[in-house]
């Protein structure tokens, strides 16, 4: 591949416009097919039996009565998913999470499953399965779980990352550390130091579509899986490995996806559906209920974070330090590590140290949620930054501008930054009319910054030119929020044709090479890179065909605005050939014309945002309303600005829910108390204001069009921005998210009592 990914500063014709998405009509007419909208002949209904205990040994499971119920075609337990992971600890955890092997590790952990002719029979059958549990002591709180005397979730876990292997097992799976300089020396130089501890509660991505799949395993070892996922290629690998299938014989088709936000990057019930289908010899549809989604998919970490920052009188930060404890559910993760990497990424710091601890708890396995781990760290850090600015008597924005990272800054997590957007977003916020708007009684304004890495990764794309000159673009990154529209724009741009001539589809795992997950804001970044590369490969062929038609050297043919043009005076009489002309003749000039691309999209540019928020707090009830909200974020280049705005608005809205309302509430018995949308309340239309957006474009030097990922950063600043706003409104520093009415009232009360 001689693909040059560098930014070229070209003028755009299609990129940056706002056409209607190609999958739009199906979605407004109800025709789009999501996970649960697909059926196969002879299909059964699968249902999963889940542990009611937070921590229990599974002594015995008796399925005999369920098996005898008329209409039941298969009953499975962990025995039907034998361990084929061959020492791969991460895969073993995935296997154990999809069906508990020895112990149930959280309320909702799968212990058995049935496939029956209809939902009623399946539900009936679950009641007939007898499980003999030995209930064990449990722990659900991240700080309690980190204590020495806490109930042990896995006695094989000895904290990694310590200088010496500890003598005893614990719930802390790993310690990680980042930073540079000498924080002790840095704090010694400080005139002001602020130090505080924070907590955030566990939240769920809250996608409206529950996990759903249809699995069909044939006796010859071939299988099909239709599923809502953010990464069908990864699902194929995981499912094939867990079921002992050959990857190429398992075709995974990603349905339309009704939201994921990171939660559909892991397999959950899919291996179970495949195992049921294998045992029953029939296709099985398995759809989670909302209760199951809350109890048994993958929410965020709950966290406990200590932050200390020191600064000189002139506002220069001299040292910054954070200790972060993140819950992982019952399986090892790297969530605190990511938090520790992102915590101080916005700032230029000489002395910085962050330490992360991964903590096991009896809660569902933590999964990614939009810029995973970053919002909690930003909440803690940006709260302290605000407080420090106050102590210094400096404006919160000016203080941040003074310490903002720049091109050439060594980031707190290691790499040296290229051109970045933190300074420009801060300047834009400083000059934004929102910052100057008057506030009324009980209102407060807050602002905060956020960072996200953005990913690239393995990507494969096919671009096929039809005989009529229309272009089909087959991509392998799942479209989670309009990427088929942006990738069609990119193909049109590169080929020099109209957007309406391009149709993008998401190909299944048998039709295209491997693609990583659509995560890390990589969908449009990496697939656009692969699309540009594929288009350039197709253009090469188009030029060759034109050269052949004209019988001139291909070097003399250039591609401009969708046409092959013979370059040079001597070809004055050759009129340009359009893509359509060349395509129409392709049958006679060498056959179909296509461009392919397989690449690892390196160089995803880091992303920064700064948000402004106004809130009004009712001092009687503690209830808080967001009354105005502004997002300023660097997109590198906004391919389809409307969908970029949509990402900014959606992330902000999720952050608002997290900041004010959403939390997993566990009872003393270790059971989740609020596994439904009634009691786990996500923002509704009447809770929110319009969300203003400002897109900045600081080109990513590692992408031909300058594109950076845009999907995740928008959820990083809101927790902090709202906490700062609430603190400014009520005069009390809020340290516990969500800032639900009782927590705000308690904080006010504590302040009054002094």
């Amino acid at each position, binding site marked *: 591949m001689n693909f040059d990914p560098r930014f070229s500063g070209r003028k755009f014709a299609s990129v940056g416009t*706002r056409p*209607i*998405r190609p*999958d*739009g*009509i199906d*979605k*407004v*007419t*109800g*025709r*789009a*097919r*999501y996970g*649960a*909208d697909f059926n196969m002949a002879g299909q059964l209904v699968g249902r999963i039996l889940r542990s009611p205990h937070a921590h229990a040994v599974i002594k015995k499971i008796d399925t005999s009565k369920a098996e005898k119920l008329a209409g039941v075609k298969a009953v499975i337990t962990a025995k039907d998913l034998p361990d084929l992971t061959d020492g791969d600890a991460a895969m073993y955890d995935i296997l154990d999470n999809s069906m508990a092997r020895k112990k149930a590790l959280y309320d909702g952990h799968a212990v058995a499953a049935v496939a029956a002719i209809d*939902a*009623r029979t399946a539900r009936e059958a679950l009641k007939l399965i007898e499980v003999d549990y030995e209930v064990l002591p449990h722990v659900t709180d991240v700080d309690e779980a980190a204590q020495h005397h806490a109930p042990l979730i896995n006695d094989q876990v000895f904290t990694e990352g310590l200088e010496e292997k500890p003598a005893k097992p614990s719930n802390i799976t790993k310690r990680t550390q980042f930073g540079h300089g000498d924080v002790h020396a840095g704090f010694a130089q400080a005139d002001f130091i602020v130090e505080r501890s924070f907590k955030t509660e566990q939240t769920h*991505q*809250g*996608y*409206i*579509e*529950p996990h759903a799949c249809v699995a069909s395993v044939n006796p010859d070892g071939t299988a099909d899986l239709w599923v809502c996922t953010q990464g069908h290629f990864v699902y194929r690998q995981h499912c094939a490995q867990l079921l002992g299938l050959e990857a190429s014989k398992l075709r995974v088709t990603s349905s*339309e*996806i*009704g*939201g*994921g*936000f990171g939660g559909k990057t892991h397999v959950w019930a899919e291996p179970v559906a495949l195992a049921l289908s294998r045992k029953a010899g029939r296709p099985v549809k398995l*759809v989670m*209920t*909302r209760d199951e989604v809350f109890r048994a998919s993958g929410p965020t970490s709950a966290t406990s974070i200590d932050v200390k920052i020191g600064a000189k009188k002139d506002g220069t930060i001299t040292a910054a330090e954070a200790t972060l404890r993140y819950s992982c559910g019952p399986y090892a993760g790297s969530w605190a590590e990511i938090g520790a990497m992102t915590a101080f990424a916005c700032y230029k710091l000489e002395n910085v140290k962050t330490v992360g601890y991964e903590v096991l708890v009896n809660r569902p396995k933590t999964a990614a949620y939009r810029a995973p781990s970053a919002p909690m760290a930003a909440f803690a850090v940006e709260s302290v930054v605000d407080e420090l600015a106050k102590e210094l008597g400096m404006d919160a924005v000016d203080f941040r501008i003074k310490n903002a990272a720049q091109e050439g800054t060594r980031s707190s997590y290691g790499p040296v930054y290229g051109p970045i957007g933190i300074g420009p977003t801060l300047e834009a916020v400083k000059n934004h009319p929102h910052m100057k708007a008057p506030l009324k009684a009980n209102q407060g304004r807050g602002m905060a910054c956020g960072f996200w890495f953005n990913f690239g990764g393995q990507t494969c794309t096919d671009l096929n030119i039809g005989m009529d000159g229309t272009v089909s673009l087959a991509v392998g990154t799942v479209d*989670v*929020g*309009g990427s088929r529209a942006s990738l069609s724009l990119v193909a049109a741009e590169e080929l020099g044709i109209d957007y309406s001539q391009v149709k993008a589809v998401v190909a299944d795992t048998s039709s295209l090479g491997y693609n990583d997950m659509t995560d890390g804001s990589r969908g449009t970044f990496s697939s656009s890179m692969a699309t540009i590369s594929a288009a350039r490969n197709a253009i090469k062929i188009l030029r060759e065909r034109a050269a052949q038609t004209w019988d001139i050297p291909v070097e003399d043919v250039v591609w401009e605005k969708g046409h092959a043009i013979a370059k040079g005076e001597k070809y004055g009489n050759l009129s340009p050939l359009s893509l359509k002309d060349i395509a129409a003749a392709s049958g006679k000039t060498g056959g179909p014309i296509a461009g392919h691309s397989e690449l690892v999209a390196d160089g995803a540019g880091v992303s920064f945002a700064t948000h402004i928020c106004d809130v009004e707090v009712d001092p009687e009830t503690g209830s808080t309303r967001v009354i105005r909200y502004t997002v300023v974020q660097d997109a590198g280049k906004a391919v389809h600005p*409307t*969908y970029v*705005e*949509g*990402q900014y*608005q*959606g992330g*902000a*809205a*999720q952050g608002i829910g997290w900041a004010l309302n959403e939390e997993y509430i566990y009872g003393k018995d270790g059971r989740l108390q609020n596994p*439904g*949308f*009634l009691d786990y309340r*996500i*923002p*509704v*239309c*009447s809770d*929110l204001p*319009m*969300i203003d957006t400002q897109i900045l474009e600081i080109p990513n030097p590692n992408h031909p069009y300058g594109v950076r990922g845009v999907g995740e950063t928008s959820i990083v600043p809101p927790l902090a921005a709202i906490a700062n706003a609430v603190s400014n409104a009520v005069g009390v520093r809020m340290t516990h998210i969500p800032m639900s009415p009782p927590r705000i009232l308690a904080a006010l009360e504590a302040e009054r009592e002094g």
Partner: protein
Amino acid sequence: MAGVAVSTTINGDAVEYLCQPDETLLEVLRDRLGLTGAKEGCGTGDCGACSVIVDGRLVCSCLVLGAEAEGREVETIEGMAHGDQLHPLQQKFLEHAALQCGICTPGFLIAAKDLLAKNPSPTEEEIRFGLAGNLCRCTGYDKIVRAVQDAANVMKGA
């Protein structure tokens, strides 16, 4: 269990089906009639993804029994466009990008249609409260509200 025979009207067409007495209208639409435009986001009346209109009333079809549709007129998302002519709300949702993943969209369109039928010139606040029974996790509602405002204007002009 003995099935219940139901005769009803769906999107203007006479339809007959047999369903179980405890089967919801949502299950009937999706699993018996192949009308999968209405979605199940919760099954408990909390998300609005299953919204349909029964005799001019907006309901969560997950909270209505299939048997209750007897003799009534049911409108679903599949009946919203007239042939190849999209309803103004559908058109405006597309133009404003009022959908990202789109799973909530059928429910929102049905709820918005019901809202505009009752209040053709809603204020922003009336739209926000009128659609508060529908959850969207992707958009932050901004573009949905704007699409409904725009559609209301178009429909008044029509």
